């Protein structure tokens, strides 16, 4: 609705402003820490990719950390043990997680709703234990330090500045792709499945194929986020595949608002900022995140963006009614 209320020109200039601010970030490290901004971008991409399934297809996956984390591990392996260049390492991670997503999809869509969520959770736990025991992951210590490699074999990613622009470009590319997917005929079919699956099926859509496709796309883009985080922090660890992260990404999406394309981005920013700036409080942050979760479910299920939309929409609607009543009186 916010999108509807703003004219395209205003929207375009807001977007340009945001982009300009993001481009300026690495040149003003005294205002905001660029590494933190990179981390936020990774989680923004992750949450928006997750929402392809939750918001747009109506599938709740409780195992998205598996895609994020395994992509991080694969990228780390390609960079450290195989010495590949950065973009190929990232691509390898993305491909692996997209494939993993398809496998999860094939198994999980045999059930629906709550069962499906539990199945994805269990499958993700299996991935977690696999990485815990695989010889190259360093188990509890994680994989570190991972060299950042050279982009196209030319540009050294050890420079934080070039890395920042790689992350920015990849995130924007990923978000653009999600925007395109959501607004494509394919996205329409996904929404049709969300709203009324039997009807979509009776209209002749191969529902299962669409769901598996959505799983693979969502997983691949989540994988991109994981790979980028691995390159930024030179680290792939068990926290990247742990189910707490799967819970975090659900919270980000719920908090931001799952009925929009970029609502989850707002949730991701809020949660990352909370974790970053209140890190010193230790386990209290976990308690706070839990309380936010509970508040989200009980009080504002539309999420931040959704609530703003709702507020604006009702205000405009009531104004319109008042106007119409006046007209009627005249």
């Amino acid at each position: 609705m916010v999108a509807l209320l703003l004219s395209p020109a205003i929207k375009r200039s807001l977007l340009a402003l945001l982009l300009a601010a993001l481009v300026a970030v690495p040149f003003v490290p005294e205002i905001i820490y660029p590494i933190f901004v990179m981390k936020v971008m990774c989680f923004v991409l992750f949450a928006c990719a997750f929402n392809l399934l939750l918001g747009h297809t109506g599938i709740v996956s409780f195992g998205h950390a598996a895609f994020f984390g395994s992509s991080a591990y694969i990228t780390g392996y390609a960079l450290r043990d195989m010495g590949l260049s950065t973009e190929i390492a990232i691509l390898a991670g993305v491909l692996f997680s997209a494939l993993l997503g398809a496998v999860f999809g094939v198994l999980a869509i045999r059930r629906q709703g709550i069962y499906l969520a539990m199945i994805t959770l269990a499958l993700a736990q299996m991935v977690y234990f696999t990485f815990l025991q695989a010889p190259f992951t360093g188990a509890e210590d994680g994989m570190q330090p991972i060299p950042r490699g050279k982009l196209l074999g030319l540009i050294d990613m050890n420079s934080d500045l070039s890395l920042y622009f790689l992350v920015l470009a990849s995130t924007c590319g990923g978000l653009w792709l999600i925007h395109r997917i959501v607004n494509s005929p394919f996205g329409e079919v996904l929404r049709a499945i969300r709203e009324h699956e039997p009807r979509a099926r009776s209209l002749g859509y191969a529902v299962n194929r669409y769901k598996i496709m959505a799983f693979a796309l969502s997983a691949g883009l989540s994988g991109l986020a994981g790979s980028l985080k691995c390159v930024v922090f030179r680290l792939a660890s068990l926290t990247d595949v742990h189910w707490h992260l799967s819970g975090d990404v659900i919270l980000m999406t719920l908090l931001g608002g799952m009925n929009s394309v970029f609502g989850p981005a707002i949730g991701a920013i809020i949660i990352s900022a909370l974790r970053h700036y209140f890190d010193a409080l230790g386990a209290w942050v976990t308690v706070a995140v839990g309380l936010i979760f509970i508040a989200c479910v009980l009080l504002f299920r539309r999420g931040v963006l959704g609530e703003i939309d709702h507020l604006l929409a009702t205000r405009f609607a009531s104004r319109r009614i008042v106007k119409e009543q006046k007209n009627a009186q005249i």
Partner: protein
Amino acid sequence: MEIFGIPHQAFLGQIMLGLVNGAFYAVLSLGLAIIFGLLRIVNFAHGAFFMVGAFVAFLIGRDLGIGYWPAMILVPLIVGFLGVVFERVALRRIYRLDPLYGLLLTFGMVLVLEGGFRVAMGSSGQRFATPEALRGVWNLGFMILPIYRAFVILVAVVVCAGTWIVIEKTRMGAYLRAATERPELTQAFGINVPVLLTLTYGAGVALAGFAGVLAAPIQQVSPSMGSDLVIIVFAIVVIGGLGSVFGSAITGLGLGVIEGLTKVYYSEASTTVVFLVMALVLLLRPAGLFGREEG
């Protein structure tokens, strides 16, 4: 004597360990299945309440000097009361919504409980002494059996059987079954279904707390002790079929044994075997071993 190339001491020992784990799986999945049956809520907080049970037993032992045996009664009451409060304050508000919100709400509760205990007690594990009457081992001739582990298996079987009797043979159980099938109709007959929901959640959670007391002397009592367990229990409930209360208890014991056997023959897979079985069951029998097909 060897069984498939494994000394039978090790073989029986692992089956024993598997049965002990299976006992916990059984008690936990039983509570989970009862709660799901009536409330249609997948209680993610089940593992957290298990952890709370173990901690309450530890704390009342340390600070109030209350021993193991009274704790077995007291702790489920305390944990059950916590569950009742949680149901009244929070869960109650979301029954009309998609069941997924229940999963998310209870997940939030997990974070609050785990984080809270981490703040109060630290992340490292606490030791809880085995009660004196149950220390020591029995030498059965063919294997050494720690008495406490035998006790755990026995108690779990008794608790599962007792729960089954309550559900199948008592008036309370009849109300519960009726409300599970047709809540509106049961309410129309003058049975207070909202109170029944509250009590059921309390009872299910109390079972988890009870399992926590049982586990305290075997495992380290730590804030994260329930968090990985609950996912295994989820997988077990998917395998057994969520519709079936008793099926999930049997599946729990069975999978404990399978896990134990995997430890003997291919220990690398022992942590993943439950999930592999789940994937297999989903491919062959999507509704679960004991479940009915439903949405």
